[in-house]
């Protein structure tokens, strides 16, 4: 359910594979499962070029990440600190590593 916050306990080790699966599901909800079926989301996928996320969809992704992981994953602050060309080159792998880093630190 979107809007529901699932708090991941601090002690739980979160693997990159788990976060990749969760992020893939979020992206599917944002861009549509039909479109997602045509592409393979990997750690190397580029968020804007391969997945074609637009700026308003980045906002939706921020909301989904907050709903799932709570305030410990501050995606807004992370993106806000980037230059535009860094955002254009952002990969799913960088996003996954960022989330894992927030949850294990």
């Amino acid at each position, binding site marked *: 359910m979107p*809007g529901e916050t699932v708090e991941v306990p601090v002690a739980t080790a979160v693997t990159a594979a788990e976060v990749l699966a969760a992020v893939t599901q979020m992206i599917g909800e944002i*861009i*549509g499962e039909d*479109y997602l079926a*045509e*592409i393979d989301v990997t750690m190397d996928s580029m968020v*804007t*070029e*391969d997945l*074609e996320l*637009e*700026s*308003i969809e*980045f*906002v*939706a992704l*921020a*909301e989904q990440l907050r709903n799932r992981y709570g305030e410990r994953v501050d995606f*807004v*602050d992370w*993106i*806000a600190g980037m230059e*535009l060309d860094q955002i*254009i080159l952002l990969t799913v792998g960088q996003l996954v590593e960022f989330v894992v880093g927030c949850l294990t630190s």
Partner: protein
Amino acid sequence: MPDVVARGVRFHTQWLGPEGAPPVVMVHGMLTGNVATWYFGLGAALAVDHRVLMYDQRGHGRSQAPVTGYTLTDLAADLDALAEGVGPAVLVGHSFGGVVALRRALDRPGAVRSVVAVDSFEPGGAASAGPEGDDVVDLGAVLAWGRQRRMRAMAERSSRGRTRRTRATAEQVLLGGTTLVSDLRRDGHLDRSALARLVVPVLWVSGDTSPFRAEVADLGAALPDASTERIELPGGHALHLDCPERLAAAVLPFVARTRCPEEATHG
């Protein structure tokens, strides 16, 4: 909850910042704008110590696109309905969003602490406003500006021959399926004599290379000097993208000075 129904329309809203902090409501521009205008930029910067409400105006972003109701009176009423619950707030508007914010400041001065208007103007300007005709000339300029930006963004992506998602843009929906153009032609201007008596503090921000410099200057000249601070920044119409740090450096102190006192927002 991200979606709110107001005035019969479903609006996509986003909140950032701590609950109970002084409220700020942000209004994006017409056709090319949406919540993302602010969300990762000035909105995030303000959210450090404000409760920031952002919403997609009707027909934009992830909000519903009704066929009618795009007059300045309607858009200001949308803002009023969505901002009603937050108490006296600082309003921040980009482009026509600043006009919408000023309209609410004129209608409900008690509900508005101050207004930040970023490169704001009325399509057509007061000087050319008149019966059907040349008054929408600058709406065409807005469209050309938006297309140019999109083309640049597309050029930045190298095509790998994949089928691209094909969705109607907000611009296509608004121009092809709504009364926006005729609505704004009929009711898209502020009352200049009322504006000259505005007591709500205004920060008037303009871009020195904006293609709408003349229109922005024309509207800015109608604001009273006593309550208006003016600043020109190096950049075009999208100052939030062209010089985000300088925009934040100009806006944050003004908002801190004019916002609702902290104690008044708690309890």
